[in-house]
């Protein structure tokens, strides 16, 4: 446990001045900006005449985040973090230290999960800030800013589930990024996952089992069609356990060339 705690502290130090750190802000805030742009341009056409502006902003931003950005974000972050070691041949230094090798793997996975978690919080904060700014500057007087329906707590629960359901693909991408030194392989698999997410966006059945599609289950259209989030949450957890076990085993038995 102590080895893991130290390895995680070390991950935080390594994060300094990296693109991975800045991406944690750029990706969610970019999605918020994109949604605001679309909603401002299209307004009632997008949201429907009787929908309140908060609900529209929440639904559209979280939807864009899950479908357009999250799989790519996870792939990019895990590849960038793993490259810190691969590109400088750091493994020959780290694995010659008296630390349990598995601690390095779990710390890396935890950092990837934390980055997704922080990005999710920034996304939520970004939505609130964007709505507040839109109200202040009153750019679209036809927007109605009341209490969102569904409520703030439902919106917060949705992003929490998006986060929990992203663990499976984060574990998968972490495994790929740690296992293969090539940035292209890690990102390539992430792009394939993103494309599959986009192509199968309407498949409720597939969304319950494919790691890149699991976060879809937290979105409103999916919740309406499937009875429970239990199966996708279980699949996400199983993927996390499975890929973490693979990754730890691989690092423990790795020959460092």
């Amino acid at each position, binding site marked *: 446990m102590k080895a893991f705690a130290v390895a995680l*502290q070390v991950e935080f130090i390594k994060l300094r001045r990296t693109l991975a750190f800045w991406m944690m802000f750029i990706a969610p805030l970019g999605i918020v900006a994109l949604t605001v742009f679309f909603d401002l341009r299209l307004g009632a056409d997008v949201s429907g005449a009787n929908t309140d502006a908060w609900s529209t902003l929440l639904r559209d931003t979280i939807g864009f985040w899950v479908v357009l950005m999250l799989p790519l974000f996870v792939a990019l972050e895990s590849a960038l973090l793993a490259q810190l070691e691969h590109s400088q041949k750091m493994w*020959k230094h780290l694995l010659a230290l008296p630390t349990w090798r598995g601690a390095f793997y779990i710390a890396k996975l935890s950092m990837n999960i934390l980055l997704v978690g922080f990005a999710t919080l920034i996304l939520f904060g970004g939505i609130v800030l964007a709505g507040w700014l839109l109200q202040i500057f009153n750019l679209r007087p036809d927007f109605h800013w009341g209490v969102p329906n569904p409520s703030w707590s439902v919106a917060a629960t949705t992003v929490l589930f998006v986060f929990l359901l992203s663990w499976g693909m984060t574990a998968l991408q972490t495994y790929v990024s740690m296992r293969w030194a090539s940035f292209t392989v890690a990102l390539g698999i992430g792009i394939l996952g993103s494309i599959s997410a986009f192509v199968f966006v309407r498949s409720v059945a597939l969304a319950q089992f494919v790691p890149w599609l699991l976060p879809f289950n937290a979105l409103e259209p999916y919740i309406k069609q499937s009875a429970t989030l239990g199966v996708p949450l279980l699949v996400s957890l199983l993927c996390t356990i499975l890929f973490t076990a693979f990754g730890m085993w691989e690092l423990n038995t790795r020959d460092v060339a």
Partner: protein
Amino acid sequence: MLSEAIFTQQLTRRYRDIVAVNQVTLQVPQSSIYGFLGPNGAGKTTTIRLLLQLIRPDAGVVRVLGLTLPKQRQAILRQVGTLVEMPSLYPHLTGYENLDITRRLLGKERRQIDHVLGIVRLESAARRLVRDYSLGMRQRLALALALLGDPALLILDEPTNGLDPAGIQEMRALLKTLAVERGITVFLSSHLLSEVEQIASHIGILAHGKLVFQGTLEALRALSTPHIRVQVDHPDQARQLFAQRGYAVETDADGILRVTNGAAFNAAAINALLVQNQIAVSHLSYVVPSLEDLFTQLTGKASDS
């Protein structure tokens, strides 16, 4: 007290059909500076990786500081500082931050960072990003990383790679100080004998995965047998004459005779013998081979076998 800091027995590692390390039995005495020599591709780095369990052997035993790999890996690595090939550093972090990462993983106190920065004389550059360091500074920082754990044994793979002559001299002096003043055993690999002979007390020479020599520097020098090089107009006649008089003689590829011993083993006696037998001598010299020649000879022999 332990007699050997590193002991391996029949250490072997294969990569498909290639035997990279072939039944190597190393004996590195405590507090020695052991120069581990061999041409590029001889298997030095593979041996070092085996000593650190970065790769696993196909056969053989590894004991470091009296402890056995892989069973006591963590206890061994706690006492060993390493630099394998080029320095592994995070370029986007400062020198201090790089040291802080390794310090935390070793469970050492923060003041140990200042201590090692002092040893490698890098205090003033500690807060600069490593990407702005020169190669020499990176090499010194890598040595500081190796020293952070207060090691009893330093395993350094080509630590002077890429350094300029002044940097090489500085590194050499530093390693000597560490061995003499702190009693640290230094296991140092290099492909240049000239670089190692100035500081090493013991030498191991690896060629094509096999250990072809191991012993003190004096023992290596003792292997260096003098010979007399002779160039004559009738080499076959001269060979016959030398053989009759009990001299050992070999012919070089360029036709020059190498007389290695005999009853009167001196240039004057050999010259007189040839002239008396109407053989014209165009060149005659007494040669004491350098360690470099010996190194080439030893590693060349291994390649022939």
